[in-house]
């Protein structure tokens, strides 16, 4: 169960007519409840990988399974967080969180309490009836995380979810995410281009190389949990970050 990726290759056609190999024979197995971060330079195919997992891409080689079933079409057992919050400005925060429930045809009334609990956990207790344009970027992204969790999916797919946030907000969001993850025990695939973020959050860090996207190495992060901001100033944290960085630099294409 969890996520099983087996010899996955993805090609893109370009406007010029040739094809680019975005992901090349990618193998990864993420057991239930594990937090895996995927780091790599821009254009290494890490977002493509996530698009395959959340069912937005067809026509790839190899296989990708989430919770035992092959990907290829949108599915209700994953929660996705994008780089931008993608909230609907015409719905209030609570209605935005309930979007998965609404589109999956489940009774919204049954999930309203759960949605409010999630907002509460995310520190947005008093903002349920506010509209997205009235929230800061960090708050909008927290709403997006609640939206990804409201239908209680087993798997959370996150594509650089905090990339657009400032450094301070980003640290707070990392802590929040760990807290939520600790409370819910989801399987998480988390794409980022920040090495400290990857090491701080994950059980394992998958380091990718670009063009074509391949796994360069997988670094196991054995830092004790629960982790907090003091974790980042430990020697073990620095060593692990350094190891991830050296793997990236070995290929010489990380900027």
């Amino acid at each position, binding site marked *: 169960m969890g996520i099983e990726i087996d010899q996955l290759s993805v090609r893109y056609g370009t406007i010029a007519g040739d094809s680019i190999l975005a992901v090349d024979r990618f193998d990864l197995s993420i057991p239930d409840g594990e937090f895996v971060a995927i780091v790599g330079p821009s254009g290494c195919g890490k977002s493509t990988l996530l698009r395959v997992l*959340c*069912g*937005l891409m067809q026509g790839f080689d190899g296989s990708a399974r989430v919770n035992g079933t092959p990907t290829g079409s*949108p*599915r*209700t057992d*994953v929660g*996705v967080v*994008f780089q*931008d919050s*993608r909230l*609907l*400005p*015409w*719905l209030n925060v609570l209605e935005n969180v309930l*979007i*998965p429930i*609404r*589109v*999956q045809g489940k009774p919204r009334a049954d999930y309203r309490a759960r949605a409010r609990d999630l907002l509460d956990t995310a520190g947005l207790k008093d903002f349920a009836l506010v*509209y*997205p*344009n009235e929230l800061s970027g960090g708050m909008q992204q927290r709403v997006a995380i609640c*939206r990804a969790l409201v*239908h209680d999916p087993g798997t959370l797919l996150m594509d650089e979810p905090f990339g657009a946030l400032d450094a301070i907000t980003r640290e707070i969001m990392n802590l929040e995410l760990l807290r939520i993850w600790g409370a819910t025990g989801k399987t998480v695939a988390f794409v980022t281009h920040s090495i400290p973020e990857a090491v701080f959050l994950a059980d394992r860090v998958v380091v990718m190389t670009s063009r074509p996207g391949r796994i360069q190495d997988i670094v196991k992060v054995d830092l004790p949990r629960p982790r907090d901001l003091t974790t980042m100033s430990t020697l073990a944290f620095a060593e692990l970050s350094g190891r991830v960085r050296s793997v990236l630099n070995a290929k010489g294409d990380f900027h």
Partner: protein
Amino acid sequence: MVRRWAINTAVFVLFVAAWDIAVRLSDVQGVVVPRPGEVLKSIIDGLVTRGIYWDHIWVTILETLAGFTIGSAVGLALGVLVGEVAFLRQTLYPYIIAFQTIPKVAVAPLFVIWFGFGLASKIAIAATISFFPIVVNVISGLDSADHNRIEMLKVFGASKWQQFWLAKAPSALPFLFAGLDIAIVLSIIGAIVAEFVGAQRGIGYLIMQYNFNLNTAGIFALLVVLSVIGVVLHFVVVAVQHRIIFWQRS
């Protein structure tokens, strides 16, 4: 706020004074260009003393609103169909563009032949003329929907229908209202032109009557009435827009 009002009033007073002085100083006759005082006298006479404008005003407003409503409803429906159904976009859109290039007022005489001298021909012209900006704006509005939001809905399992109602239709609303704002003013033009061609009532009819009698002050008075109607209808559209598209208010 008070300052802005003061400036606006001053500009208006200056404009009227300049108009009055220009007519006095030149040897243009009152029949050609009336003085502001005469126009005001005509307005008071038409609206208050004899009150003969009201009947015509209601007729023109009725034609305008009926034409606007029909034109917008048909325009909205066709815009959604053409915008959302690929086959219809391919087959119908070129005709819509082609028809749009015809000056609609040029078909007014034809509509009077088809629909008679009564209200129907005026409503038909107003509807035809207000229909096109709605169709075109609705199509662009649907196209403007953010692709990322639609992708988000897709990921969570939304059907095409849900993607339409949750993401595309709200995105199209600002465009729809921009179209409605154009359409309401065009409807007035349509109604007036149709009344020029052949009518027994309405502001356009009255303007033609005054034209024959060389009552230019009366014509000016009716132009003022028309622009007031236009401004009021424009503000009604804007007010409704602000209520509905609340998320765009800053």
